[in-house]
């Protein structure tokens, strides 16, 4: 990403031998201390079986067009991002459905990202707040111009849209601005 440097990439030529002294006399052995390091590639790929466990109804809800959040039965403290137990009472939370309509609490435009998300740059991340809900929800915001990022986006009314074909990820619910 540096303006004056080419991107460094992996995937060089395969090399099976390197220069090495013909005779390993004392001088040659000593000279090995000056040898440049050998670098090899080690691929590493793995597929995890990740369980959403007690949070599963949230993702099943998104897949069915419902935004489920967690609420403590005693205090009414409500989490926009689900959690199985309330951090204050220690009690198991209940599922409640709320409308996916809120306002932007904080945002950024990612012009770079982790390798997995680089092809999607630039993308907009928002923390969404909902009326009567005590915590926030991290989501993508669409239908704004990433080149025109502005603090005026904070406080903007947004509405959720559910991905038609669920990927069973939190991005199954994303947001867009609504007028008024």
């Amino acid at each position: 990403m540096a303006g004056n440097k080419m991107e460094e990439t992996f995937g060089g030529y395969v090399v099976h031998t390197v220069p090495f002294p013909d005779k390993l006399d004392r001088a040659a052995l000593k000279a090995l201390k000056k040898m440049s390091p050998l670098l090899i590639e080690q691929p590493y790929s793995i597929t995890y079986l990740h369980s959403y466990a007690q949070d599963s109804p949230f993702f099943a809800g998104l897949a069915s067009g419902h935004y489920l959040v967690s609420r403590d039965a005693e205090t009414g403290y409500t989490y926009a991002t689900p959690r199985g137990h309330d951090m204050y009472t220690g009690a198991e939370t209940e599922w409640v459905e709320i409308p996916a309509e809120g306002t932007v609490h904080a945002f950024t435009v990612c012009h770079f990202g982790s390798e997995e998300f680089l092809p999607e740059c630039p993308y907009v991340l928002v923390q969404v707040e909902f009326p009567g809900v005590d915590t926030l929800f991290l989501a993508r915001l669409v239908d704004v111009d990433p080149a025109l990022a502005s603090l005026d986006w904070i406080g903007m009314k947004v509405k959720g849209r559910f991905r038609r074909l669920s990927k069973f990820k939190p991005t199954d619910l994303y947001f867009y601005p609504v007028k008024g």
Partner: protein
Amino acid sequence: MRPVYAVSGGVSKFAKARPDKTFPALVKEAYDYAIADIGLTHRQFIELVDGSVASYFSDHFARQLMAGIMAQDYLGLCPKPGHRVEGGGATGGICFQEAWKAIASGYMDICLAYGFETMSHVATWKGNEFIALASDVSFDYPVGGFYSGYYAMMVTRHMKEFGTTPEQMAYVSVKNHMNAYHNPYAQKREKLTIADVRAAPMVAWPLTRLDICVMSDGAAATILCSEEGLAKLEKASGQRIKRVLVKGIGRGTDAMRMADRPHQKYEDFVKYNLLPSEDTAETRAYYKALWKKGFRYPGVHSFRAGRMASKEAYQNAGITDPLHEISFVELHDAYTSSEIQTYEDMGLCRYGEGGPFAASGKAFLPNIKYGLKLPDKPICPVNPSGGLIACGHPVGATGLMQAVFAIWQLQGTIGKHFGDTALQVKQAKRGAIHSHAGTGTYVTVSILEKED
């Protein structure tokens, strides 16, 4: 608890890549420096040291589980006790404190704290992916997991609530890069202007490439000891060691998902989070007015973990006026914005005042020409070493690097170690080191004092 001294330290050269050495050999580089600085040979030190604590963040970067024991083994510390600690970006700070605990509790008389990270083994954007795995992989990572994006969201809220500006953040970048110009250990030694920082490629609005620290390969080591341990080291080396006391430590935590952090009412903030230095009628009124405008604590703009770590450390060290009682701070500036947020957490200014504080000059060094018009005189230099932004951030080494630089400041030996006295804080009496895990989850603050 008995008194704990931080007597010596060493730092490897931080660089984008150190293919010339394995990670245990990088630790050895830092370790050799630390023992040589107190006039000891390896054989002498190994006879005396009771054990160690190892610090590294990510098993992904090394693709080597149990890397800690490999460093322990390479250093020749086996079969002495040791363990690895991990707490994200705060791993080094936690390591320092665990070594402190080993001494303070009486378990050990001499303890070596060492840390490292080799981040060059993967491409930069894969590295960003590894770091982003330190966010909730069910709810945060899949949305666009990218730490710079997380911190950028925090600062947009900070800007909205308090009027903080990207230019104020750029003051931090100019300061830290310029300080690092005099630090030979630093990875990025650059003379920058505010315009340079703002013109750099945008990474996550409003943070540019020059608002963000880089990935590094590096290691650091410190030696902590009790009074008895100090006597043993001095007897072996035949020289008096300059005394730096670890006066107090503090640690705080917060919810992994920043979305889950509370938005407390004023009364709870006053009850749980107010610093003694803020407990005046004027400051209470200031905060009351903030709450009237909609400020809620900590929200996503403030690090409650950093505040709690500071509060505890100040209490243990007897600090009531941090800005004037601390000679310098080495804090975790992974982002210029997080340095500003941390000024507030640490009580160098009040919440909401971090932006103007950054541009005031109060956190700058007196003897460095920054090319900036600074209205105020330096009071408490922050990141005199250049911080993470300019020194680099080999995660497991970073918190220990801060400790080493703080020890040298308090020993008055910056000139000796840097070959340049420009960064030596004059009459440095007390220093604070602050280590922070993303996105404000674990924070440690340790207070070091020169003992005459």
